[in-house]
């Protein structure tokens, strides 16, 4: 079991969809939301996802396929 702190940003057209609920039904991960701002045109969440490493990585890939922007809590650390 491992945990990963993530920031999720929803595009406007995805705000009405129950994405996190579907995620927890599809993958064996737990979600603990720590901070969020969801309005009619913006939605972001900071959360901790726990589970097996591969399950977390698959869950992140699935979220990205749904159009959700997923980044580590640290933001972009890579620089060219």
């Amino acid at each position, binding site marked *: 079991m491992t*945990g990963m702190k993530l920031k999720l940003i929803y595009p406007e057209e995805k705000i009405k969809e129950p994405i996190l609920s579907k995620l927890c039904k599809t993958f064996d991960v737990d979600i603990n939301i720590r901070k969020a701002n969801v309005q009619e045109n913006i939605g972001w969440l900071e959360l901790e996802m726990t589970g097996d490493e591969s399950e977390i990585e698959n869950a992140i890939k699935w979220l990205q396929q749904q159009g959700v922007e997923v980044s580590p*809590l640290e933001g972009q*650390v890579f620089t060219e």
Partner: protein
Amino acid sequence: MAKIKALKCKECGREYPVEPLHVCEFCFGPLEVEYDYDEIKKNISRDKIKKGPVSLWRYVDLLPVENPTVGLNAGFTPLVKAENLGKELGLNNLYIKDDSVNHPTLSFKDRVVAVALSKAKEFGFDTAACASTGNLANSVSALAASAGMNCYVFIPSNLETNKIIGSLVFNPVVVAVDGNYDDVNRLSSEVANEFGWAFVNINLRPFYSEGSKTLAFEVAEQLGWKTPDAVVAPLASGSLYTKIWKGFNEFKKVGILEENEKMPRMYGAQALGCSPIYKAFKEGRDWITPEKPDTIAKSIAIGNPADGPYAVKVTRESNGDMEVATNEEIIEGIKLLARTEGIFTETAGGTTIAVLKKFAEKGVFDKDEVVVAYITGNGYKTMEVLEGHLNKPIHIKPTLAEFKEKVVGQTINK
């Protein structure tokens, strides 16, 4: 550890022990070093600083390190009075803080990495790491080599290896990740949390970022223990910018600056092709909407900047402003600084100069105000951006006649 009280969450204020931690476990806010300023005030003085080493370590009383061991020659770079550039921009007291000649790898990153790896040694880490192909990778690789530490550099695998020759020479392990830079970010964060490594801008971030305060300390000392009226600096993650502000404020707090010393107005520079902090500032938001960078200013192309909201706050608090520069303006900025002051900077510096010029033209600076522009990196590392933008050589046959016709005739008195 008398000078440091704890690590403190910037959001909720919860305190943590001084350990390699960077995120508040409760609200997920970033942690920052909390100093005991009363204690520091008793120990620090202008005299003591002046007798200190000619490096950033002369300010060790305000840095989160007890015993500096890495990057002992970093910092204390020149503050150049830019007479020629000042004349062009109508500024009588323009200065360039020139970190293009920082030791050992010619960018401001040598400051933050010197602090991060000195702290890493104190914590007992034997391995340094970062995710970068540029200035950060250069600095971590060089300073880890000199510190006798193992070093891992993470990069996306689709980048050409020649981009990292300046790091490879120091013999780090380069991990080419099969994915884009978002994948490298996520993997780096996982590695930092799983392995006992000093990932300089992840788990050591609270200590690493403090190194940028020395950019303010040095300028204040070099101006004769005064603050400038205005500062222009690049915005990437927002960390350097907010720490320059913190540095000036700390110097006042511990009595190095006079009690009535005015804090500078802060002006931030972003590239148009990656300007999430500028947009948040202009739209009055306190959150950042991430962007996919598309700019030649790659060293400051951070589409999802961790300290963006704090940079917005500093700009508002200091009565400053932000501006953006196009690719063409960035190139012109590089050329302008080179032509007037003989300083060759990279695209981040070009962005800063382009934005300085815009603000000067808008008249936001009084002509006699002291304005400092921060040049954070060296142009010799990214010369390819100038291809096609510079004058070509004049080709002649080896005869005096051709020299007179083609060189003298076309250049003298021109």
